[in-house]
């Protein structure tokens, strides 16, 4: 059936995609829920919500494996195109079951809804402190001053790394995502990301010598029991993955929501006042913006899924962002409907690779948004200063979202003091 395939001119990293998202998916999808693009070496683009769900449930047919050194089948992982010059894979997101499940089993207990609740007080205090830092000035950048900070410090806490170290990871975590290879800044960003990997390898050694609670500690413990599955290289890959997932996606989500709310004071009030609305609205912002726009897969064997044929070795991009705007699955798909429910969005991915941190993301998103709406209730975005990611094909993010508001009064201690206090609390719990 290869000759019957629908061929489209499509590249999620292109300016057209950024300018056209989400409408760009409609003409493609109406021809076929999976189309072929010749860009990036040739790949299938899945835009239909039904089909994406069917495919995601077949980890036997779709592989996430990344094997840059050709030890296994030479598959190219979850980024299309695969990054050049890499010799390691991106943690358990670039593994298949059962290996991948081993990692998730170790990390899941840190990310269940019950486990996340423990962190809520810290997230509230951090959000308050971030806003305190700027509230007297009447100006802020929601990205630099709030949404970059809170998820980053929280991720440090979950990993069991020093909270104040978030600053070392912040720029590389975001810049590696938003800087395209053709940018003049690219070599510097690659350098930063190498330094980040070295720093994490150093942390790993420190925790091996001096066990600590937290995700790093749990991975080190798993390594003792099974040094092959939990080898150093994949542990560093996993830490990079957790930092990327923890730092960048929630930032993107929070920025989208605060930008959308800019011109909607009535909706701001409703979110604070109507019980339950924040829960459905959170899912709706996640659906609409889909921070992680999609993921690459490799077909393991000639197969047919949902009436569509795929060949062994074919590359597939699961376009979660576009599938989340499929009119067959969502009424008015390009509108934000705060009380939309049911909402079967695929923004956290589907199947065995579903986002492991979704509960964390929801909690920190809600806390930051509520705190922003309370502390700077009349903010207006300075549109001329808004900068979105140059390439949104990986993460649909913002680099800057500046706003002005009526200045208020500081209510608590400086941010670093709050972080320091939480560090002592966490250390105390461990002693």
């Amino acid at each position: 059936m290869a000759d019957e395939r629908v061929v489209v001119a499509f590249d999620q990293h292109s300016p057209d995609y950024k300018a056209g998202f989400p409408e760009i998916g409609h003409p493609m999808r109406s021809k076929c829920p999976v189309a072929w693009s010749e860009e990036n070496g040739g790949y299938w683009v899945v835009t239909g919500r039904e089909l994406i769900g069917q495919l995601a449930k077949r980890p036997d047919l779709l592989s996430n494996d990344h094997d840059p050194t050709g030890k296994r089948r030479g598959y190219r992982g979850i980024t299309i195109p695969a990054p050049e010059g890499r010799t390691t894979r991106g943690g358990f997101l670039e593994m298949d079951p059962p290996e991948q499940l081993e990692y998730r089993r170790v990390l899941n207990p840190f990310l269940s809804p019950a486990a996340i609740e423990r962190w809520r007080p810290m997230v509230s205090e951090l959000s308050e402190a971030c806003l305190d830092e700027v509230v007297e000035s009447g100006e802020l950048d929601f990205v630099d001053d709030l949404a970059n900070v809170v998820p980053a410090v929280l991720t440090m806490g979950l990993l069991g790394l020093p909270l104040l170290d978030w600053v070392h990871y912040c720029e590389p975590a975001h810049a590696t995502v938003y800087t395209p290879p053709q940018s003049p800044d690219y070599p510097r960003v690659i350098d930063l990301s190498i330094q980040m990997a070295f720093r994490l390898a150093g942390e790993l050694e420190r925790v091996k010598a001096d066990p600590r609670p937290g995700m790093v500690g749990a991975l080190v413990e798993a390594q003792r029991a099974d040094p092959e599955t939990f080898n150093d290289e994949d542990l560093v890959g996993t830490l990079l993955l957790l930092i990327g997932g923890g730092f960048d996606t929630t930032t993107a989500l929070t920025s989208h929501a605060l930008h959308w709310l800019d011109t909607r004071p009535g909706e701001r009030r409703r979110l604070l006042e109507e019980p339950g609305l924040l829960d459905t609205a959170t899912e709706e912002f996640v659906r609409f913006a889909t921070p992680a726009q999609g993921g690459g897969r490799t077909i393991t064997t000639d197969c047919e899924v949902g009436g569509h044929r795929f060949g062994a070795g074919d590359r597939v991009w699961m376009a979660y962002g576009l599938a989340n705007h499929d009119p067959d699955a969502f009424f008015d798909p390009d509108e934000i409907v705060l009380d939309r429910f049911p909402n079967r969005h695929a923004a956290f991915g589907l199947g065995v690779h579903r986002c492991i941190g979704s509960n964390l993301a929801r909690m920190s998103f809600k806390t930051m948004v509520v705190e922003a709406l309370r502390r700077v209730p009349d903010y207006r975005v300075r549109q001329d200063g808004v900068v979105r990611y140059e390439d949104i094909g990986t993460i649909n993010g913002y680099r800057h979202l500046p706003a002005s508001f009526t200045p208020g009064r500081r209510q608590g201690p400086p941010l670093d003091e709050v972080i320091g206090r939480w560090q002592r609390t966490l250390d105390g719990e461990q002693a």
Partner: protein
Amino acid sequence: MRVRVDPDVCQGHTLCALAAPEVFLLREEDGHSYVVGEEVPPSMEEAVRKAVATCPEGAISIEG
């Protein structure tokens, strides 16, 4: 009405618990869902139907 969550299909999206918190509980270890009891009280049937419709994995089934 009786309700079941297929543990092999559930991936812990937690949306069922948002729809019907009285019926679906989330496991402490991994956030995956299980039901309090298979028999659904009539007052909760509507909420359970919503949960079925919102589960992104199609992990929840009802009978009767």
